[in-house]
């Protein structure tokens, strides 16, 4: 195989692996930009994956190959609803946002498998789906040598994810909603004094966050695993959180960081296929992305500045 093909495959796989991370990191961005820490991305992804898989499973008969879309839509709704307790606890009841997030992670992990076992007669995972997202082949563009396979042949969710990156950038930096969202995360009292409803903004942001993270989870279930089990998400929510911080709470930055983690995953199996493991132990290849992340953070990126009011509950009339 020539280098062009290898590279083309690498880019292609990178996008596959990054998609879920992009969704979730974007989700985290909305919440954290509004000042609410979201360590619950993992749990929100789990709920997304679970809902996506289960709804798709039951929609298969009625909708056929349209079923994954139904499942995906259901996951979005489920994610937004699932985020609600986090919002209630951390916004209305001023709970510690980290604690509330951890609670949600536990809840998602337990509830999803518990329900799976009830729905699927004791099985720890959903039945394998017969209809999942197929790869799209963008006409003409996908036929360009190398580049076509790399960029224009992929799951619909990948295209949605990249579109959402652009959309989020626009929303955040060009619209009144975005300006207000950022104001609420930086200086909620200032926002309050100009008549912005801080709590409502934060509720909205946290629910958007849940919806997006759930899209990430559903993406895994409906593209790569074709089912849901306890380890469908397995830590990717935390990686997404890292990507968000790595990307400095910026949509493009988060996307870049997500792609970086994706590339590392893709390299893992490529290296084995090309038999490079005889030169480098697999263990080291597995470690590489994480080591690189730390090195990059320590060397280049340095101190990243979180939204100023991140993690601080806002009380009207407090100082």
């Amino acid at each position, binding site marked *: 195989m020539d280098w062009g093909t290898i590279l083309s495959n690498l880019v292609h796989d990178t996008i596959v692996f990054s998609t879920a991370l992009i969704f979730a990191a974007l989700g985290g961005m909305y919440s954290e930009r509004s000042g609410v820490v979201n360590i619950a991305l993992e749990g929100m992804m789990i709920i997304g994956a679970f809902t996506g898989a289960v709804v798709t499973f039951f929609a298969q008969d009625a909708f056929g190959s349209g079923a994954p879309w139904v499942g995906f839509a259901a996951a979005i709704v489920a994610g937004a609803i699932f985020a609600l307790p986090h919002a209630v606890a951390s916004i209305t009841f001023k709970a510690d946002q980290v604690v509330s997030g951890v609670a949600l992670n536990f809840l998602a992990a337990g509830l999803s498998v518990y329900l799976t076992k009830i729905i699927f007669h004791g099985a720890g995972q959903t039945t394998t789906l017969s209809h999942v997202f197929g790869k799209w082949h963008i006409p003409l563009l996908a036929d360009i040598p190398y580049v076509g396979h790399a960029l224009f042949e992929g799951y619909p969710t990948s295209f949605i994810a990249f579109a959402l990156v652009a959309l989020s950038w*626009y929303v955040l930096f*060009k*619209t*009144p909603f975005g*300006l*207000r969202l*950022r*104001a609420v995360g*930086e*200086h909620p*009292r*200032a*926002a*309050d*004094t*100009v*008549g*912005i409803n801080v709590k409502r903004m934060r509720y909205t942001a946290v629910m958007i966050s849940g919806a997006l993270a759930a899209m990430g989870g559903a993406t895994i279930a409906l593209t790569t695993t074709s089912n849901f089990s306890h380890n469908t998400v397995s830590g990717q929510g935390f990686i997404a959180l890292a990507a968000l911080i790595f990307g400095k709470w910026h949509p493009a930055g988060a996307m870049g960081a997500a792609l970086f983690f994706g590339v590392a995953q893709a390299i893992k199996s490529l290296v084995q296929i090309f038999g490079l493991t005889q030169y480098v132990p697999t263990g080291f290849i597995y470690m590489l992305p994480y080591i690189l992340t730390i090195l990059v953070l320590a060397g280049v990126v340095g101190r990243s500045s979180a939204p*100023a009011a991140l993690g601080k509950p806002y009380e*009207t*009339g407090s*100082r």
Partner: protein
Amino acid sequence: MRGITKRFPGIVANDNINLVVKKGEIHALLGENGAGKSTLMNILFGLYQPDEGEILINGKPVHITSPNVANELGIGMVHQHFMLVETFTVTENIVLGNEPKNGLQIDIRRAVKEVEELSRKYGLKVDPTAKIADISVGMQQRVEILKTLYRGADILIFDEPTAVLTPQEIQELIEIMHNLVKEGKTIILITHKLKEIMAVCDAVTIIRRGKVIDSVAVKDTNPDELAAKMVGREVTFKVDKKPPQPKEVILSVENVTAMGNRGVNALNGISFEVRAGEILGIAGVDGNGQSELIEVLTGLRKASGGRILLKGQDITNRLPREISEAGLSHIPEDRHKRGLVLDFTMSENMVLETYFHPRFNKNGFLDYAAIDKHASRLIEEFDVRTPSIHTKARALSGGNQQKAIIAREVDKDPDLLIAAQPTRGLDVGAIEFIHKRLVEQRDKGKAVLLISLELDEVINVSDRIAVIYEGQIVGIVDAKSTTEQELGLMMSGGKRMQGGGSDE
């Protein structure tokens, strides 16, 4: 406002307060720390809800349930602590919440134009595209004022607007206020500075412990009367002190340079000396290197050149702990950020710099009995009002927090005491107390370095005054013979002097 009462747990912040403000006037609210001024204004602005009482605007009763409602009623407020988003531009801050739109997105060009127009109309100079973090405090305040004007406010509330400004900026602000009144606005001004009230206000209402004491026209009163009403007793404004008896040099700063936060030199070869038995005041406009100077002296920032000697010993770039142990104490300018661990008890805060001394610590274990005893003594001696030494520092009022810091620092019996903005935001009673303590230190034969943005304070308390401008001392004058005008000129870089003599 009629019969306004507001209770907080354990305190009645506003007790049946009546306040009448006439259209087109500048009305001052005067009162000690914690008298309830901010609370009253926060009620008027809809941030708090009163427990009792009603508010009438133009004779009509209104319910101000949120700042939104206040905005609609034409009430705007410039808060004691600015309500600006540091990472946003001036324009973004001004239009926030009322953004001009172009389709779905903010029409930022139109917003900038509107800000420019407003700024021209009221003579409030701002740079619409600058980030808040990059502009001076004075300009930030103008942004705050523009924010209220942009929302069409007719009644403007200023909560301690001059506390953070330089004399020049205060002058500008007074002019702005006059302009605003001319445009038909009504202003409520909260301040501790009697001089300002006398200079700009038409009427003044005095509040003490949540109750209105009196409401008078400014032309019928004088500063002494106001002060007496405010604290309930006679107050002296002049710090009375004996002539200084300077002895040997304690601190000598030689040609020190240091980098500021923005990556350019904040100190440009600064040199001066402080002697035992004198108070050297450092006057200057905010941002001319005062903060950096303090940080370099106390070891919190690295000097890139020059030398600092404390009692002849070189302390340049030594660790804060070494410098502190060498005999330097420091009352920090930001008491919440540097001065206290707010979630520590008062007792723990009193040994923040000395917990490792053998008298508080044996083999690495803290001797809490000794620490508590120490704290009790300090709190008693310095009259810090706290329910208990085990109360968290957070629960104390600003004035008492400051007293506690001063107790801690003075008790270290330092050869040099650096006092940075020691009375910022405090009422006259507290100010008097603190000034006395500084002079007492001097009279004990210690050196005191006072760094303050308040010219009054510098002139009253210091023996000699060094003026800092762009990271250099541009002149040193005798406190008794100088005038505010002379200092003001030097502070703006207008006149360079050496050792009191002119070199023009």
